[in-house]
């Protein structure tokens, strides 16, 4: 017989859809819910860091620790909202906001030189020295008209990443 525990009502789905600005279709939300339940092994209502790391493809990602801070303990609604930036229907603004949030780890609305260096550290690990990272960043910042001391705002990110358009899309499998 059907698995009653993993059923969403029409109300639930609409509520979630509203929460993510109608980015996902009802079917997509149903399959995201199935995935959520699959990852949330003990049905706690959220996915723990350890459960995220049980997906090897995620655990191998250089930014996984940084992303974990963003997704740790999310309930289903926020989980969907988190993923909505990756929908083909999401605006470029939304995608860049997401990237901005990854950089802005303290959430103060601006990205400092050191914020970027830290992301670079995640990306390059032990294969670049701190000095190398800072030099590289200094150089490209200067060429783009910024300096080591300047803070990058969301608008700057939109200017830098906005055109040509980013490709950041993940398709939700619907069966």
């Amino acid at each position, binding site marked *: 017989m059907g698995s009653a525990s993993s059923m969403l009502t029409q109300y639930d789905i609409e509520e979630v859809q509203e929460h993510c600005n109608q980015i996902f279709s009802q079917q997509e939300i149903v399959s995201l819910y199935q995935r959520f339940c699959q990852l949330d092994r003990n049905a706690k209502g959220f996915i723990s860091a350890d459960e995220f790391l049980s997906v090897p493809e995620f655990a191998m990602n250089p930014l996984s620790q940084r*992303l974990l801070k963003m*997704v740790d303990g999310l309930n289903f609604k926020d989980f969907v909202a988190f993923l909505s930036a990756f929908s083909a229907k999401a605006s470029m603004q939304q995608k860049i906001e997401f990237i901005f949030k990854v950089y802005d780890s303290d959430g103060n609305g601006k990205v400092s030189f050191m914020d970027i260096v830290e992301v670079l550290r995640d*990306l390059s690990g032990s*294969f670049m020295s701190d000095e190398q990272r800072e030099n590289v960043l200094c150089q490209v910042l200067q060429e783009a008209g910024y300096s080591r001391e300047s803070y990058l705002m969301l608008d700057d990110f939109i200017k830098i990443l906005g055109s040509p358009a980013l490709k950041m899309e*993940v398709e939700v499998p619907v069966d």
Partner: protein
Amino acid sequence: MSSSSSSGQLHSSSSELDLDRPNIEDYLPSGTSIQQEPHGKLRLRDLLDISPILTEAAGAIVDDSFTRCFKSNPPEPWNWNVYLFPLWCLGVVIRYLVLFPLRVLVLTIGWIIFLSSFIPVHVLLKGHDKLRRKLERSLVELICSFFVASWTGVVKYHGPRPSMRPKQVFVSNHTSMIDFIILEQMTAFAVIMQKHDGWVGLLQSTILESVGCIWFNRSESKDREIVAKKLRDHVQGTDNNPLLIFPEGTCVNNHYTVMFKKGAFELGCSICPVAIKYNKIFVDAFWNSRKQSFTMHLLQLMTSWAVVCDVWYLEPQNLKPGETPIEFAERVRAIISARAGLKMVPWDGYLKHSRPSPKHRERKQQSFAESVLRRLEEK
């Protein structure tokens, strides 16, 4: 170019530690690791644009091929209308109240016959090794037939039956421990398996040891070396039972095949592939060891109508000149997957029990760092 030389170093340094641990990158099609390298001068945008990595991470959260390999498939409900529902109820009554007790009886009789002849043979025929081994072999085949009968196994065997000769190893895809029982009822294989607890462990260490089975503990690295040695000794013997290995090292849901451990392919023997495909019409034969014990799994099988499956004994394969054991393993995996209609995924089944080593992440970091440094110099 530099990445290939560094992978060589990685191998030599870690070969001692993980004797049989495959390196995922070795199995990935070479095309994926050498993606189209971006060229041209490095700009701020190139450094800030982390969208490909984020996309990968989100993609893994939404769906990943690894978790899919170990997902039990819920049975399709068919009792959805008024006419079928009573029929289904009747089926439940028959399955649980008629078939199940009958099967328990069959299995009990089987065990009585088996034990009452196995113990005397084992004890009394101490001096006559050859005769004793032959009798024990047929007795183990017998008890396995009783097991198969206890879930009304409808097994179709295709291809020539395995014969006993030295220097050959049988490898098969792995869905449940019942794979072993199904293969064992035809031929007394000596199997390499994870050591279990409880009554299964007891059987392993008493009866199955007599057909030459070898047990190990996945988590013990010392065990791996001992097993490797035992393997090499076993295949040389002429009167040993043919060796059966499940190179995936873990049960997969019979829709996918995960990477084969290369151990079996390094022995210098002919590899005889065996493909097993279960028909899910009555019951899902995948043993999800995380969710249920083997006893519960057996009970589930014993209360179903039947276990339907196909077994193909495929043509023996040998290492081709110039082929590495990993390439050989992948070739055999492709043969088995094609025959049984399974999808190949580039994952190590042991990741079910442990996290991927930081090596894989370092690999990505290395290629990022190299690309940045290289592009910085380009003008």
